[in-house]
């Protein structure tokens, strides 16, 4: 069994065991087993990063076995510079989520932990699948645990949010299924993504495919105007659900553009790049304004996520290396930063049981250590140099200026809006005099919370100060993808 298979199936297996054998009465044991499993799953992803050869764009750690002979489907895995970082990131975030839930989740602990472990394995599967159908199976299957996570452990409007999340995403991906079948037919009976990359297609077919993929991935990213499920899902989901949703699940959509839309339909992608850029910039600017007026902290961070994701898709569709690498770096850094932001909100929510900004004020007085971390993550969220948030945004803006100065200028306004909504929230929540008795009664973070926030803080600073390992790994793959996408593959 290869390393990638291990990274997929180890957490899934552990999750299934927890689901099957766990009891409410053994919550303590369940937590330790889940922690152990998450840690082991994270460890097995490390050799992937260490052994990755960044001098080639070829897919590495490949595994291929027959799966459904009837449709020529293979269990085919592999990673390249575009996807390699998301495998350890997924496992890492899952580890954080398990720790974050430690004392917070007391109801049906084994199901909670099991769902997150299974979800982790499935998402690693999405990032490493090289067979179209396998990708689809993983992509769709992730909906099920997330649906249950939101619905069972979520807030008051959880049912509405869970349904909206599920049906929105399913609507997009069902059309993608038709697109995959169409490609299967066009390629003479193959679900192999690499074969599809080489497949010549007429412009009409490319356009249809492009939009089918667009619907599936745009909902997942989410891009304006199909983003409305995200604020609902984020607000209602438990802290762990929000963290995984923001840190990893949104990236499934971005990654889909890289793996499917750009290489399979390059001509349509070029033709519609203006459309994509426009939607992305709307997300950056308009959603930035929307974030400014939110009263709910989780909603604010959710809208800020949409704006940041707009940056990612913007970077992809300006077709230069800085933009695309910047987009991918932004995906990774947003994984750390947004995860950390939601954890911070979770820390406050566990104590006060409110997400309203107005319920707080002067938290820094009673929780100084926590406020320090929160400040750092907020700075990263607005893209302060030296933090992870800066690198990706800077690269995308540079790429955009190269492409068209004015587009770059519009994109750069995010630095202002981002700072505005984030810092204004920080000011209202953390600074000023102590607002009420709830805030006065707050206790600072304990060792567990300190540990998980510290690990994330290190990651955020490391990526901000020394992003070279991240950009080096993706460099060759990105330039290869751009080269590939630049060549027309119209069928005559």
């Amino acid at each position: 069994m290869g390393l990638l298979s291990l990274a997929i199936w180890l957490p899934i297996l552990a999750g299934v065991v927890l689901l099957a054998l766990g009891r409410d009465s053994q919550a303590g044991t369940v937590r330790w087993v889940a922690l152990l499993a998450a840690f082991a799953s994270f460890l097995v992803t490390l050799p992937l990063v260490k052994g990755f050869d960044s001098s080639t764009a070829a897919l590495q750690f490949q595994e291929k076995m027959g799966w459904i002979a009837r449709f020529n489907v293979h269990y085919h895995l592999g990673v390249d510079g575009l996807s390699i970082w998301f495998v350890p990131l997924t496992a890492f975030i899952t580890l954080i989520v398990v720790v974050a839930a430690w004392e917070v989740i007391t109801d049906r602990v084994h199901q909670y932990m099991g769902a997150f472990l299974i979800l982790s394995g499935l998402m690693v599967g999405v990032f490493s699948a090289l067979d179209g159908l396998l990708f689809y199976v993983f992509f769709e299957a992730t909906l099920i645990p997330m649906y249950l996570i939101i619905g069972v452990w979520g807030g008051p409007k959880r049912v509405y949010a869970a349904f909206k999340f599920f049906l929105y995403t399913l609507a997009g991906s069902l059309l993608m299924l038709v697109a995959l079948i169409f490609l299967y037919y066009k390629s003479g009976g193959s679900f192999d993504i690499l074969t599809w990359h080489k497949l010549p297609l007429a412009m009409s077919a490319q356009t249809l495919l492009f939009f089918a993929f667009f619907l599936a991935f745009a909902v997942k990213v989410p891009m304006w105007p199909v983003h409305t499920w995200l604020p609902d899902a984020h607000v209602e989901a438990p802290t762990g659900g929000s963290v995984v949703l923001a840190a990893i699940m949104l990236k499934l959509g971005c990654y889909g553009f890289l793996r499917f839309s750009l290489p399979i339909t390059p001509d349509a992608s070029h033709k519609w790049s203006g459309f994509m850029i426009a939607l992305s910039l709307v997300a950056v600017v308009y959603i930035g304004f929307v974030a400014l007026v939110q009263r709910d902290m989780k909603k604010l961070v959710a809208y800020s996520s949409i704006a940041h994701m707009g940056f990612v898709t913007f970077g992809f569709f300006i077709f230069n290396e800085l933009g695309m690498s910047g987009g991918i770096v932004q995906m990774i850094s947003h994984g750390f930063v947004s995860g950390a932001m939601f954890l911070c909100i979770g820390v406050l929510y566990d104590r006060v049981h409110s997400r309203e900004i107005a319920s707080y004020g002067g938290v820094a007085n009673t929780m100084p250590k926590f406020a320090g971390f929160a400040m750092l993550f907020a700075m990263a969220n607005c893209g302060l140099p030296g933090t992870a948030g800066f690198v990706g945004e800077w690269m995308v803006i540079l790429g955009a200026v190269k492409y068209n100065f004015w587009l770059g200028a519009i994109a750069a306004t995010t630095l202002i809006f981002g700072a505005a909504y984030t810092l204004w929230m920080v000011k209202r929540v953390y600074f000023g005099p102590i607002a009420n008795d709830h805030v006065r009664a707050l206790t600072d973070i304990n060792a567990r919370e300190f540990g998980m926030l510290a690990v994330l803080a290190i990651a955020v600073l490391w990526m901000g100060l020394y992003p070279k390992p991240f950009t080096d790994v993706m460099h060759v793959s990105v330039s290869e993808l751009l080269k590939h996408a630049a060549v027309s593959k119209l069928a005559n």
Partner: protein
Amino acid sequence: MNQMNWHAVYPEMVLLAMACVIAMLDLWVTSPRRTPTYLLTQATLAVVGLMHLKGFNDGGTEYAMQRMVVADPMGHLLGAFACLAVMVSLVYARPYAAERDMLKGELFTLSSFALLGISVMQSANNFLVIYLGLELMSLSLYALVALRRDSADATEAAMKYFVLGALASGFLLYGLSMMYGATGSLEISDVFKAVGTGQINKSVLVFGVVFIVAGLAFKLGAVPFHMWVPDVYQGAPTAVTLLIGGAPKLAAFAITIRLLVEGLSGIGADWQQMLVVLSIGSMVLGNLVAIAQTNLKRMLAYSSIAQMGFMLLGLTPTVVGMNTFSAANGYSSSMFYIVTYVLTTLGSFGMVMLLSRQGFEAEQISDLKGLGKRSPWFALVMTVIMLSLAGLPPTVGFYAKLAVLQAVVSTNVGGYIALAVVAVLMSLVGAFYYLRVIKVMYFDEPTDTHPIVSTGEMRFVLSINGAAVLLFGLLPDGLMTVCREAIVKALAT
């Protein structure tokens, strides 16, 4: 030509003989749980099922009883699945029936006769044999629905089923007589040849095929011939609903293939259009109306209408020409679809019976409230089943939909791709009400605190049933391959 070839029909003969034996033997059984009768019935079904499997493995096509019946891989395979479906149904039915004073010898005898009818239809090579099998099955089922005499609902359902079922049989018979009039033969392969010559009066043929398709649509429960489905599913005792919703669907599929494909593929372009209409109508109406249901059995009934619509889609795109490749592709997808649908249906009604108890029918969707807490394991089983009906990976329902969709898309006609898009949009609508069941089980607090009582046997089989839905989802290849083999051989003759 005139040989009787008895050995080709041994499975049916064993079943007939044993059904009679069981009927007689039951007169001496006094145990209220009917253990001897029950065990004998299960043993008989197991043996018959194995005989079918052996026949399938041998792989030959044999005509018997002066070409009245044919024993081919498709018939054998569907026969084996039908035996399995009835066996599982009886396992689920026994505790349920025992609590409702329905556990009489008739339950077993009538089920066996219904299965015999199914078997006869699956291996028919003659219009009259098809009709004979259909009536044998239907009459047994009418009686089964009315088995609970003192229930007004059941009696009403039985009447409705009988009247509409008789009407459908009439349609079918009328259509068949047209065919006979046009081609001068009752034998399916002769009709095929006659139609192939192109000498036949087309208007009579098309007129006949309209009636045949209407009759088949009644039996499959496709829109606009679906009226009986919700009422009968809801009104019949759940044990009987399971018998109606399971194995007979396999038979309906078999005669659809026998009549339309083996007999009338010469005028395929005509009936394919009709199937497109039936299919879209069923998917749209079934899925939309299911949303409004609060009764679980009724919801499953509308879901079955929608599922049949999706299955019919696999029969529509295969404009044959001389090339049977795309035809085989489409029909085997439909067969895979119907087999897996029956598997999931068994589980879903099994769950309804599991939650029912003496004096209480777990019929409302709200009766599932909080099942995730009351019984995490069976909530999981039900979740898998609902996801499969919704067609989500990694359950078998996804591959069934995938198979049908790829058959539709592979015709490469623009209109058919639009058809595929309609189909996926309708499964999106469907996902809503299947998800609602999962929502009720996990997101709501339990209102019913009675412990779930059932026999160990039932728990075991239901668990296996759920596991099979998941397992075929992870490794669907084997089942797909056998369905394909069966269809390819059926088309070759």
